[in-house]
């Protein structure tokens, strides 16, 4: 791709520059070779989705090499900016298993087969995170006796925190696609269309509409598109509702939390409905929720912290009399697929959880995520939307109008 093409492609990301930035940080931290294993690291460095156990070996200079399950290596090479000479497949064959193959590769990069190898060790609530397992750590240690394995994922975390224009544009396109999915759901459930419809059917309606627009996956590990109706919307503290075969019923709330993926950028927007007949009490809950979402969106900006924002929002909820129903968290982290956990760096009071005192900076991207749940009344709502942090405001990437409509 030449310079003009790069300038014309709104989704262009300078991956070679990312690698050079990692290598500069490796040099500063006296790391000879970086061995990445997290899904977020693979996405951020290769521009390819790596669903099987994969690794990336980043040398002190030059191109990195990906190692993945042999059945998927050609496809990864085809999707990635890296050529096939830099994507290896591993298999249960002599010299070709992931430990020996990667250890041999790294040993050739280490001067005198000795040096410091950065690895990714830690923990996450996100199951597909991909930290090095204890077994892998032991095996690599045994296979590379001259190497010292040191935890180094902060290098990637720091570099990936502030998003470039290409990344933000990918998220914006994925969000536009999600909005199309929401319109398709609205049309399908309106005018009695919801009758006899199940949560899973709604998930599929949204998926089809989004795939027609260019989404390649309802990416969330929480079951793809999350649809909840009735009591399932109000599960105590609940913010994870894989769609079920439950039918949508009159008089119930309906929560539509749908996901699209475009060039590894992620759309993630939740919208809510009330199925008629709607009681005054249901409407009161709904208005509470819409009001606190509005207030949250006008509060997010550079300089604020998760704890400060939560304090302000919970004070508002208390004043309005619905604090009991709010889950006191208003965000989760987001990045190219695989990066769906904490905000910022691992520098908070609880290891690998969001630091409540993290100070948001311009061009950070996060999911504004809020959950309202009243289990006693079988009602709840969810809001999710990728937002870009700017100096004095935030920019919601999904433009679907904020409201809780009544469907008849």
């Amino acid at each position, binding site marked *: 791709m030449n310079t003009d093409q790069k300038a014309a492609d709104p989704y262009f990301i300078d991956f070679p520059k990312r690698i050079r930035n990692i290598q500069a940080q490796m040099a500063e931290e006296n790391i000879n070779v970086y061995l990445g294993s997290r899904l977020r690291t693979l996405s951020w460095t290769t521009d390819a989705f790596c669903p099987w156990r994969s690794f990336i070996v980043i040398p002190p200079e030059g191109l990195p090499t990906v190692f993945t399950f*042999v059945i998927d*290596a*050609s496809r990864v*090479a085809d999707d990635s900016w890296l050529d*096939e*000479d830099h*994507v*290896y*497949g*591993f*298999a*249960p*064959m*002599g*010299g*070709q298993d992931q430990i*020996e*193959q990667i250890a*041999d590769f790294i040993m050739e990069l280490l001067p005198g087969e000795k040096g410091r190898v950065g690895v990714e060790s830690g923990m996450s609530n996100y199951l597909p995170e991909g930290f090095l397992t204890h077994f892998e750590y032991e095996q690599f240690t045994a296979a590379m006796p001259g190497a010292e394995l040191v935890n180094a994922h902060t290098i990637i975390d720091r570099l990936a925190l502030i998003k470039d224009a290409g990344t933000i544009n990918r998220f914006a396109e994925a969000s536009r696609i999600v909005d199309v999915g929401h319109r398709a759901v609205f049309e399908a459930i309106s005018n009695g269309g919801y009758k006899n419809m199940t949560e899973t059917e709604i998930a599929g309606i949204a998926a089809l509409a989004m795939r027609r627009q260019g989404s390649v996956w309802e990416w969330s590990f929480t079951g793809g598109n999350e649809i909840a109706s009735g009591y399932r919307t109000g599960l105590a503290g609940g913010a994870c509702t894989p769609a079920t075969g439950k039918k949508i019923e009159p008089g119930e709330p309906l929560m539509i939390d749908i996901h699209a993926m475009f060039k590894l950028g992620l759309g993630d927007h939740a919208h809510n409905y009330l199925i008629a007949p709607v009681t005054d009490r249901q409407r009161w809950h709904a208005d509470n929720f819409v009001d606190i979402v509005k207030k949250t969106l006008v509060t997010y900006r550079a300089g604020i912290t998760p704890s400060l924002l939560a304090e302000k929002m919970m004070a508002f909820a208390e004043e309005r009399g619905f604090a009991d129903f709010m889950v006191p968290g208003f965000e989760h982290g987001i990045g190219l697929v695989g990066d769906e956990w904490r905000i910022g760096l691992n520098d908070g009071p609880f290891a690998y959880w969001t630091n409540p005192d993290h100070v948001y900076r311009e061009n950070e991207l996060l999911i504004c995520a809020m959950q309202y749940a009243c289990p006693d009344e079988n009602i709840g709502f969810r809001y999710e939307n990728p937002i870009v942090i700017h100096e004095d405001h935030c920019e919601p990437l999904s433009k679907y109008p904020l409201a809780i409509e009544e469907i008849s």
Partner: protein
Amino acid sequence: MEEKFVYLSQAWRDEGEKRLKESLSPEKMNHATSSMTNLYKNCPDGIDRFLYFRFSNGEIAEMIVGEGEPPTKAEFRITGDYETFARITRGEIGAQKALMTLKLKLRGNMVKALRLASLADRLNKVLSTIPTQY
């Protein structure tokens, strides 16, 4: 009585090259360009040996046998005991099974190796026709 060639000797190599050139056209070799070294450990006389092939556009460009390490680094390197290679050449065990049971070790890009696997089989099949004394 049929002449037999001592496995991995210069005469065996010459016969092998002759048969490969007669049997495997560039088309049959898919015009492949690659190189491969077989490293034979624990030979009967205690000396490690190698067999190095280099193909260019489907034609044999180099075929070298010798002791120790080959003079040139190949794209693929297969290491195993002399007896394992001999059994493969005699058709007693498949190369893939030997790899999957750790009797052979392959170094090189597995994805590329998969594309070349059928070519390696064709090559081994021709070499297996050489009357050989192990």
